[in-house]
């Protein structure tokens, strides 16, 4: 072990090694192959050949800009709603949960243990046109007598929000949980109101959690397809649905691959903008 003491610079590389190796072999290599596919042309029946077909990318953006924009819109709305819904809940668990904190955490994550299909069938049951929720909304006049909740953009965004809520909540919890309540006491001793204490102490200290939560929610949500498939109409299709279709129905691997890279590039671009706005230290630590 004195070896490591003399070669302290090695430490981070050793720590990184297993994780990076795993990702390099099982993610980067397949991704490389995907990149190769994205520059192919041809069809499944007649075969593909590598022709530096950069036009695949241009075609992808120009044809599917509607779905790309919609995906980012839906993912963005879902992320904001998830943040607003999760934050007070997680705050309560972190500060008032007491020794039952872990139990409450499980309750947040547990809906994910019930398979996606079964969960969605349950929501289809709850939000059915003839069900209690829709009927109440109709009575209150929020929904027209002809209105419905399912098979709308609302349903798709609601589905995405619900399914990604745990991904927002858990990082938030991680950050809120470590805030020492004595800091809040100190703030109040210094004549801060509860509101000021929250805004000037708690909120900034929970920033890493907010950043982590929004990333873990927005990024996968942008590529989601299943909520649009089960809860939406053709007018709600997202870029994930297009990629599914290209890959499975059209068996057009170059198109699917190039569209996937476009999605990844856009997400990374959004990430850069976000990092700049938030301050890179919060992202990279």
């Amino acid at each position, binding site marked *: *072990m004195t070896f*490591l003491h003399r070669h302290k610079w090695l*430490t981070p590389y050793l720590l990184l090694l297993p994780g990076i190796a795993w990702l390099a072999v099982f993610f980067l290599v397949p991704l490389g192959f995907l990149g190769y596919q994205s520059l192919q042309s041809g069809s499944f029946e007649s075969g593909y050949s590598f022709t530096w077909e950069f036009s695949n990318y241009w075609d992808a953006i120009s044809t599917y800009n509607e779905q790309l924009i919609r995906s980012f819109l839906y993912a963005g709305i879902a992320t904001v709603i998830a943040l607003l819904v999760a934050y007070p809940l997680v705050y309560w668990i972190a500060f008032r949960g007491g020794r039952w904190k872990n139990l409450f955490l499980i309750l947040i994550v547990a809906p994910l243990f019930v398979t996606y299909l079964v969960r969605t069938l349950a929501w*289809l*049951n709850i939000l059915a*046109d003839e069900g209690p929720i829709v009927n109440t909304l109709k009575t209150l006049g929020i929904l027209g007598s002809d209105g419905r909740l*399912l098979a709308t953009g609302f349903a798709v965004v609601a589905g995405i929000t619900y399914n990604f809520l745990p991904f927002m909540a858990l990082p938030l919890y991680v950050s809120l949980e470590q805030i020492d309540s004595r800091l809040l006491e100190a703030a109040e001793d210094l004549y801060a109101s509860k509101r000021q204490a929250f805004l000037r102490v708690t909120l900034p200290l929970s920033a890493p959690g907010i950043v982590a939560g929004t990333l873990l929610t927005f990024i996968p949500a942008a590529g989601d397809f299943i909520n649009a498939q089960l809860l939406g*109409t*053709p007018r709600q299709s997202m870029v994930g649905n297009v990629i599914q279709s290209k890959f*499975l129905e059209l068996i057009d691997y170059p198109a699917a691959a190039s569209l996937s890279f476009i999605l990844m590039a856009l997400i990374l671009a959004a990430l850069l903008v976000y990092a700049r706005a938030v301050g890179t230290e919060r992202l990279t630590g």
Partner: protein
Amino acid sequence: MTMRITRRELVQRGAAGVTILSLPGLLAACGGSSSGGGGGGEVADTLRFSNWPLYIDYDEKTKKHPTLDQFTQKTGIKVDYFEDINDNASYFAKVQGPLSQGRGIDRDIFVFTDSSRYPQLLVSKEWVEPLDKDKIPNISNLIDAQKSPTFDPDRTYSLPWQSGMTGIAWNEDVTGPVTSIQQLLEDPKLKGKVTMLTEMADSMGLVMLDSGDDPSVVTDETFDKAIGRVQKAVDDGQIRRFTGNDYAQPLTKGDLAAAVAWSGDVVQLLASNPKLKWAIPEKGAMIWTDNMFVPLEGSSPTASTYMNFVYDPKIQAQIAAYVNYVPPVKGTREELAKTDPETAKNTLIFPSDEMLSEVHSFSGEALNNEDYIQKWQTVLGA
């Protein structure tokens, strides 16, 4: 630092443990591939059969598949039965890798639906082995309607497993009878309360029939005409959604008035809601069939022996009693009537000759036309 190294060791030990856990799994997989034969030749001692889940008879008490055991008793061939087909497109995406490289997939039988493009694709790419017809005398029991599908006119490569019909289902509590596709697409009383299937063959086939065109011979005109009708219904908000079999719950609950639906689903749903009705539309319905194929490097003699076994009406009756889809074997209804007269009378499982004369299949060639597929996918939103 001591801690860091220990963490890495932990991961390494964990990985080693996993390898040990999965070694039996690996060995089993290797064992499986060695006992199968490749291509022609002799009958092997194991049949490896991939199918959809819940698609063969099953005894809840013994937790076994009776007909598979009967097959083993009769022929001495063991059956490795896998229920790993979840969906035509995804399963094809999974197996096309090895098949495109001329390698087998360690299976002797797999199943694809002819309302998808894959049967035609498999045959044209020669990724399936020809059947050993000498071993299938019972092929004469194949019902006439199935004798010559467009993707395999001489039944060289395939035989049906089970079929289903696609027609219109409606909920009597919500609407009167919906007897035609035209009504489905244009009746203002049904606006926003109908769905169609995402399967091009099913939905477009029905629309073509309704327009008076023949879905087994698709031309650009007939296709564009049908697409136009569907797109209009979508734009008008008439069609609520395009579904897989997830129309079933909303239809049962009354969220939907009517849906393009599969007969097999309705058989089950009727048990829960007697107010559901299914019918062949005025101008005709579609029929789809899950076909058994022998993948490359699969043992055709072994597979053919099994297919012959399953084309015995006595065996087929046992399967039909559990699965409740349309069996392709003549004489099954009579056999089943001996033990289960109720099911034997169900025209959704045993359609009458008149019904069979009204059902059609979609052109396999059109199913593989990239242009058509893209146009349909665009209507679906992709």
